[in-house]
């Protein structure tokens, strides 16, 4: 435990403004926000064209492992979601929902507020998806190159030995929503590091490679390479799951931003400057 120190006497008791995010990271972050949002929503438009997922090379139409559909109820169709043999009532959101201000619901897998464009329009969803897929991949390659060559990767993203040792405490702090203050707040914490590494070197490459595996022309680069992913329908499933993983990451990321000083966090990703909260442990004691 730290020695009791009078707040005014402690240098860490005063919050400080530090330059946290450099310009290239900030620019690429916001390009990524736009790309991921559009890719996710236009991807749901494409999914809606055949709202079922399979494993293997080809579609086993009578037994998808995921299907978002509508079943005939006593008062007309009702939206349902089936996952691995279990059926869930999801009417109003999944399977059947209102498009815009329409009076009557439409049978469609994902609702119009989650898709680009809103009304079901496969060809337009594909145009959005593939344009922003290019931007997303170019931005991703630029980011990874920058991270490696600028030292961002080793300096900020890789956990130190010290951080590995204290991982238990970091998990406990996270579960208690305790956010680091003082010197510790200047650096990404170890769970943050690991999450970013899994997203940057796991989920993002997977979503891109599984997406490419769905292209019949790219399958011809080395005939059979997509067997690595289990075949084309497995690739479609993995593309969907990786995208779901990214959505989960974004949800947790936004939650953490909101509960750890939303304005300070967002401002730091715009201007680069982050206010390090005063070290509460020292102030309190």
């Amino acid at each position, binding site marked *: 435990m730290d020695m009791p120190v009078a707040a005014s006497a402690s240098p860490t008791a005063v*919050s400080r403004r530090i330059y946290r995010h450099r310009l290239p990271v900030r620019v690429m972050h916001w390009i990524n926000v736009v790309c991921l949002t559009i890719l996710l929503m236009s991807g749901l438009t494409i999914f809606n064209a055949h709202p079922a997922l399979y494993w293997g090379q080809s579609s086993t139409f009578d037994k998808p492992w995921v299907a978002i559909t509508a079943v005939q109820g006593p008062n007309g169709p009702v939206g349902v979601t089936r996952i691995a043999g279990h059926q869930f009532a999801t009417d109003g959101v999944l399977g059947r929902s209102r498009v815009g201000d329409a009076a009557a619901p439409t049978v469609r897998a994902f609702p119009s507020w989650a898709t680009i464009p809103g009304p079901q329009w496969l060809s337009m969803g594909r145009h959005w998806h593939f344009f922003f897929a290019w931007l997303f991949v170019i931005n991703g390659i630029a980011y990874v190159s920058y991270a490696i060559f600028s030292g961002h990767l080793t300096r900020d993203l890789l956990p130190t030995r010290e951080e590995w040792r204290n991982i238990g405490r970091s998990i406990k702090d996270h579960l208690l929503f305790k956010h680091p203050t003082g010197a510790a707040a200047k650096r990404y914490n170890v769970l943050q590091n690991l999450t970013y590494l899994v997203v940057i070197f796991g989920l993002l490459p997977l979503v891109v490679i599984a997406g490419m595996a769905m292209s019949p022309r790219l399958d011809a680069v080395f005939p059979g390479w997509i067997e690595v992913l289990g075949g084309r329908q497995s690739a479609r499933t993995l593309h969907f799951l990786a995208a779901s993983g990214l959505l989960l990451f974004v949800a947790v990321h936004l939650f953490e931003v909101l509960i750890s000083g939303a304005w300070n966090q967002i401002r730091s990703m715009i201007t680069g400057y982050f206010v390090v909260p005063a070290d509460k442990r020292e102030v309190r004691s």
Partner: protein
Amino acid sequence: MNAHRTNGARMRSGHARREPSRRTALRTALASAGTLALAGCDRLSRNDAFVDVLKSAEQLSHAAHRAVAGRKAMAQEFTPADVAAHFKGNGTLVPGDADYQALMRGGFKDWKLEVAGLVEQPASFSLAELRAMPSRTQITRHDCVEGWSTIGKWKGVQLGHVLGLVKPLPNAKYVVFRCADSMDGLSTPTNDTRYYESVDLDDAYHVQTVLAYELNDQPLPVTNGAPLRVRIERQLGYKHAKYVMKLELVESFASIRDGHGGYWEDNGYEWYAGI
């Protein structure tokens, strides 16, 4: 690991402020920005100039795909064990057009494939003549633009072989497939709505590009395009025109129908369907 070397130098002092009003304002702003952005995306989808920007990705994809999977790169072929019990039919399942109905009733005995346009020797071939030509059998995966896949065994004559018989002229750049099935109500003399497609000569002369008359060791069923459909194995299903009646070699498809090279292309889909 020497974490703050650069950050430390730029450190400035200041005070953290708590701003609940800003936070609420931010949340409201984000919510309304979301609604506006959605409406904006729909409006942009109807703006031709913007959609042209989006569509520029098609050229990029086509060029990149040609670079990594060359003109002759082969689509994966499968084993008989992979063949689906039922090959899903999609799009037109039975053409309602009177001329096609008559051919169908006659078991396609009077059907002929016409080959015309920019060729030295225009010709037409009966089904028996096509069957007498050298054939290729391949088990391939059919990928629909909607997202599903089905594996089937196809037998037919390579399009390259037929082109060799008619000898395309040097200025021929595309093969247009003219089909029997009307898509938007039955065709009239002034309103042709029949399906059509087109491919460049790279795909036309590709080893796996086959004019198929058999599916899974049976004569091609009507739901899958009887009596003849084309297989363009490295592109999506809508390129694989069914109910093919005529091949037309052209220099450009700009003057055909809406000018985009195919029925679905005229309805907004990409001409290059390798993705």
